[in-house]
């Protein structure tokens, strides 16, 4: 399985690494300029360009479609370069937001009458990093290398906030390069993942360092999160794009927490620990009260613990209840298997052996539905047995959670009243 995973995942990893490389740099720039959502606006405008190409008869993902996307992105770059001069009373982000929604709506209006309509827009904005490979790498890597070189050589000019036409020209260069990168990246990885590549590694870099070290840290975090995300999506059988976004988010959370623990002063660390203890007390307290007053309702905390450690149920279930529960689990699984066996039999009969008649198929479907109802019945028994046991122990478990919360709470300790040597006791 490891070999299969490696064969499947190393090309997407290389593509993701290239994307992390260029987007981390852009991320540092957009965070410095305070235009975080310009990435989404450019992606939507590029999608609008692809939509125009589609309406003109060019196939989706064709060179013409890419060309139109780039053209629209460059026009958007001109507009965005101009918005900085308008942002006197209104923030540039607000105007970027308006550009985003208008581009999105315009795209939908345009394809409304076309065959495939919104499915086309979905395809343009929803890449799949899993299917990106060497064929995409051979053109993306050199393109991004050139753009990176251009931006690196102009970094001092770009860092300065110039006014007038020079300022506009440097802004246009930045947004034009960004537009090219976003147009290409979104087609490979989708809007959400590209946004993650853009913001999260750069944010971690800013949290820990200044100058060039931010970039290095961002790259390192991006690569580690990519490896972790790809591995997790394979091991846990999860969609790759969404898993990567969640792992990047978790990476930011961990980085922020570590920064508090490692770099904060003693006072801030104590404050952080105190806050954590208060939060945990709150969770235990609310869970305890909820368990005591609504033992039959969903109990997120207790249910999570039971999912991780099923043996916890036996703490509050009697021996008889445990037997009933286990029997219900066993029969539920058996009925599930029977339904699956019948479905496989029907599916096989479509092409192998004698075809089942309509009457046979109806009879088989009836059995499948019966097994499903029986399985649901066993699942009901599991829930009911568990709920009754919880009801019996509601006050003990609810109270226990409250007590645990109280023990964790950081009560203030009053200092003992000791008289100092200089204190004069008045008689």
């Amino acid at each position, binding site marked *: 399985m490891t070999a299969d995973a490696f064969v499947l995942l190393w090309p997407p990893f290389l593509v993701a690494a290239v994307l992390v490389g260029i987007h981390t740099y852009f991320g540092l720039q957009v965070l410095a300029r305070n235009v975080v959502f310009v990435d989404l606006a450019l992606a939507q405008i590029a999608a609008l360009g692809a939509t125009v190409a589609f309406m003109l008869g060019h196939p989706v993902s064709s060179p013409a479609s890419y060309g139109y996307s780039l053209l629209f992105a460059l026009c958007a770059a001109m507009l965005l370069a101009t918005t900085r001069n308008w942002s006197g009373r209104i923030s540039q982000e607000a105007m970027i937001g308006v550009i985003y929604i208008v581009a999105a709506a315009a795209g939908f209006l345009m394809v409304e009458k076309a*065959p*495939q*309509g*919104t499915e086309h827009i979905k395809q343009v904005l929803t890449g799949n990093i899993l*299917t990106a490979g060497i064929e995409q790498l051979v053109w993306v890597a050199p393109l991004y290398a050139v753009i990176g070189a251009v931006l690196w050589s102009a970094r001092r000019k770009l860092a300065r906030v110039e006014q007038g036409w020079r300022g506009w020209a440097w802004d246009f260069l930045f947004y034009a390069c960004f537009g090219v990168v976003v147009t290409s990246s979104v087609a490979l990885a989708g809007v959400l993942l590209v946004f993650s590549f853009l913001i999260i590694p750069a944010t971690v870099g800013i949290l820990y360092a200044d100058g060039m070290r931010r970039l290095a840290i961002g790259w390192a975090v991006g690569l580690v999160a990519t490896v972790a995300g790809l591995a997790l999506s394979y091991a846990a059988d999860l969609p790759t794009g969404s898993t990567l976004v969640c792992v990047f988010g978790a990476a930011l959370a961990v980085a922020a927490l570590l920064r508090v623990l490692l770099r904060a002063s003693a006072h801030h660390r104590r404050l952080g620990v105190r806050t954590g203890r208060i939060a945990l007390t709150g969770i235990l307290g609310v869970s305890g009260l909820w368990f005591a007053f609504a033992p039959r309702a969903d109990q997120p905390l207790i249910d999570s613990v039971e999912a991780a450690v099923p043996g916890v149920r036996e703490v509050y279930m009697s021996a008889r209840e445990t037997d009933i529960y286990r029997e219900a689990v066993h029969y539920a699984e058996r009925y599930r298997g029977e*339904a699956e066996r019948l479905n496989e039999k029907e599916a096989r009969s*479509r*092409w192998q052996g004698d075809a089942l008649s309509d009457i046979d198929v109806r009879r088989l*479907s009836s059995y499948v539905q019966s097994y*499903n109802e029986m399985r649901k019945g066993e699942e009901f028994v599991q829930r009911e047995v568990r709920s009754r046991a919880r009801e019996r122990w509601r006050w003990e478990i609810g109270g226990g959670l409250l007590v645990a919360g109280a023990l964790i709470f950081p009560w203030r300790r009053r200092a003992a009243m000791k008289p100092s040597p200089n204190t004069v006791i008045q008689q």
Partner: protein
Amino acid sequence: MALCSAVRVSVLWRTAVMAVFAACAGVAQGAFPIVATTADLKSLAESIGGDKVHVVALVPPNTDPEEYQPKPQDLARLKSAQMVLRVGLDFDLWLDRLVPQAGNPAIRRGGPGHVDASFGITLLDVRGAQVGPVGGHAHGSGNPHYWLDPANAEMITASIFEALVRLDPANAQHYQRQRMMFLDMLSRRIESWQRALAPVQGRPLIAYHNNWSYFARRFRLNIAGYIEPRPGVPPTPAHLAGLIKLAQAQQIKAVVRQPHEPQKNAEFVAAKSGAVIVLLAASVGAVPQARDYVSLFDYNVAALAAALQ
């Protein structure tokens, strides 16, 4: 002279325009108005009704009917309809929000003009039956793509015919005649399609989505796996790896997808397994060649036969 010529042109033009309007009005006045949710049901209704019915399909071609967003004009169409024809099985749930808003009691659920074409169909992939990640179609009580078995046209047209005879008894004989002719022609075509696909019976292929159960059953096709096992959920890496292994082990030659389904995932699997991508139409109008219900199968059968032989 020039003035007479101009007047003649003007009269001719006005006459032509009036003739066009008169023709449209004639169709509108005499024809029984039906609204169908999909182009497939529209085609079947027209096969029975002929020129006695005027059928409009709400979902445009190549649009996923399950994610269709109704428009204001759809309300106007439903207001003036005497029959609404739906796929059912939770396939066109959006219709349930639209019909009450139209304020037309004849086409409300349970009303005389509300026809659920799934009535009487032998359903496959019954709800919750496909446990695990294989072939799940998370709908109502079965896979809703039943029109893709041409033999089911008999039951579908029976439902339409029964409603038409009840609501438009004056043309009952016409509908009966049309239906008999259509089913007679269709049964001969089914035989020819089965003969065309007989050489490739049992050959394994991969489909993008679980639309093809009924089609596979009628033409004895072996759909060995699905790229998108759960509707709307992208395939996971483990699933794709398993699918590629399966394709290599069973020497799968074709990956079937519809025009509106994402091509990247299908191309990825096809490239890794050496299969070709076959574009099939799951609905009338999905490809230009699928102009009506019969040509839908003409196209699909020809495309598959060419790819698998």
